[in-house]
């Protein structure tokens, strides 16, 4: 047997169908975020239609992918861990919002996705933002975007290349910092088209060319949220560097104890064999 914890765990199996669905969904999801750059002008009558339509589309996509993953089977241990880790994340989120510049919502996702695999990372991204919205009363049109953004962070954390020791921590730190910026970049796109006054020169301008739009958005992003994103990236970097090794060990220990991939075999009962009086095995 290999050294315990070295083998990557798959807490939530992704059958081939779910993998295909995830790939398609990632493409649609990114389109739902990035439409201001690529939507040709005069495609819709009003400027209010596209954000609404893409928002509904994203909600549907998140629901479908989660339904697909759940269809493949989330066993009770994985589900209980999803719930508990969502609670940890939901507890960490307001902690960060109160302290300027510290954004704590992503690092648990990164570590959990790394240990428990991409399927679990995706599901945890969905459930933790959903639970947090339910607990804090933050249900709104922004929720599918946050869920999908976090789900992507968890998914890609599960897909990082395999390496051990310090290299792994360095990799996760770098990924955490990158995820901090990327998450902010995508999430700002979601309210940019209507949050900024159309009369200002940083706002979304329907019909402008890709280069112009991109230029305006970069300036808007830099002016409003670069500080927050930097705070999030630095928080991820520092926290993963400080507690990452210990937390990874804790996660791996939990994964080993949960024995997610324990093979279940059914053997035909032999009539000649003595009756097993111990009853069915637990789990």
């Amino acid at each position, binding site marked *: 047997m290999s050294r315990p914890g070295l083998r990557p765990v798959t807490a939530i199996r992704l059958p081939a*169908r779910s993998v*295909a*669905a995830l790939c398609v*969904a990632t493409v*649609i999801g990114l389109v739902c975020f990035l439409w201001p750059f690529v*939507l*040709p002008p005069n*495609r819709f009558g009003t400027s*209010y239609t596209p954000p609404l339509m893409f928002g509904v*589309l994203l909600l*549907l996509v998140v*629901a*479908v992918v*989660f*339904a*697909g993953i*759940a*269809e493949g089977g989330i066993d*009770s*241990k994985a589900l*209980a*861990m*999803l*719930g*508990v*880790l*969502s*609670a*940890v994340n*939901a507890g960490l989120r307001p902690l960060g919002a109160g302290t300027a510049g510290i954004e704590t919502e992503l690092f648990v996702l990164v570590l959990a996705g790394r240990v428990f695999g991409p399927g679990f990372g995706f*599901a945890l991204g969905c*459930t933790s933002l*959903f*639970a947090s919205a*339910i*607990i*804090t*009363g933050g*249900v709104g049109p922004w929720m599918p975007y946050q869920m999908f953004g976090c789900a992507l962070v968890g998914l890609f954390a599960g897909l990082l290349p395999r390496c051990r020791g310090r290299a792994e921590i360095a990799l996760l730190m770098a990924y955490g910092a990158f995820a901090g910026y990327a998450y902010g970049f995508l999430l700002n796109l979601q309210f940019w088209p*209507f*949050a900024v*006054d*159309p*009369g*200002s*020169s*940083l706002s979304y301008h329907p019909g402008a060319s890709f280069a*112009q739009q991109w*230029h*305006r958005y970069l300036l808007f992003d830099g002016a409003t949220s670069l500080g927050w994103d930097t705070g999030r990236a630095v928080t991820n970097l*520092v*926290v993963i560097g*400080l507690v990452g090794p*210990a937390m990874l060990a*804790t996660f791996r*220990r*939990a994964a080993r104890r*949960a024995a997610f991939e324990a093979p279940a075999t059914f053997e035909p009962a032999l009539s000649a064999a003595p009756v097993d009086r111990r009853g069915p095995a*637990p*789990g």
Partner: protein
Amino acid sequence: MRASLPSPDGRRVPRALHPLAWWFWALCLAVAADRTSNPLLLLLILAVLGFVLVRRRTTAPWARAFKYYLALALVVIVLRLAFRMVFGSGATPADHVLFRLPHIPMPSWYSGISLGGPVSLEALLSAAVDGLRLATLLCCIGAANALANPRRALRLLPGALYELGVAAVVSITVAPQLVESVQRVGRARRLRAGRAKGLRALRAIAIPVLEDAFERSLHLAAAMDSRGYGRTGRATGRSRRLTGALLLLGLLGLCAGAYGLLDGSAPRFLGVPAIGVGAACCVGGVVLGGRRVSRSHYRPDPWRLPEWLVAGCALAGVVLIYATTSYDAAGLTPSLYPLAFPPLPVLPTVAILLAATAAFTAPPPPQPSVRPRPQRVDGDPARTLTAATR
């Protein structure tokens, strides 16, 4: 029906309104706010939201969320004003210029972006009204969050998303226990004279709390297993394959639709029609996937006369507002040229006040009961789980 009508002594039995009714009511008000840029009407909508909230909200934690939405709404308005002032794109000769910010010339790669310059009253007013509209939309969502019980709304999730709901319920239940766990670990640290503060204390607190959380999740999983979690309802192998195929087909349809929308030269049927077909497939798959779980409902939320009244009045208001847009567009979206005090059109006012009747038609919220909170950490996890969904 009987429970919701006034009893002989004129007092009504308190009960929670169906969460969907509150969401429908608030979304109708949001649609109304979206149709107008008349600041008087927008303020009236805000007043209606406040009035209904004061009369019908509970003392539950989520009901306190509204003040954060109000703060966020203020931030939105201020941000809009600031952006318009600093990054404004100039003023027309007809504008009343209030003051001038120093104009900062931009290098060539900053083309199209202007910083500073004249700030006109018209520009500020339009930014403020636009901000007010967005703020009103936000407050509508906040009101729905504050009025509707999110835990009861969870059971309206389709069966295919059952696990999402369960995970949310687990985390709602576990969150207070985690707080208790953090306090316990902190107490133990103090007893051992652990005085490290800040980042260095992080590891000493985070790891035991996490271990605790995982321990709890394994207990919970065992409890769920022993109570029959994972039973596969009425789904057969064939219906599962059909579900998977529908979901994947739906996603592919959505993908094709998105491509058709974004590529101007794509054939017309690839746009909205493909999205429609894809969405239909997805919904079908989700509905069919719901067969996998069979749920029973403990104390289902009824939909009775008050729900009809709340939702119906809000819908009537929206219909009235849509009816006015055709002949009284100036009342709904007053022009800033020339500057004048906005009028208060009669029909939209009546429409918004119609939605305010929810303050009377909805039953009074239930009084806070003094039910003991499930707080024993090592109690039966599944029992606290079912307690949380009540």
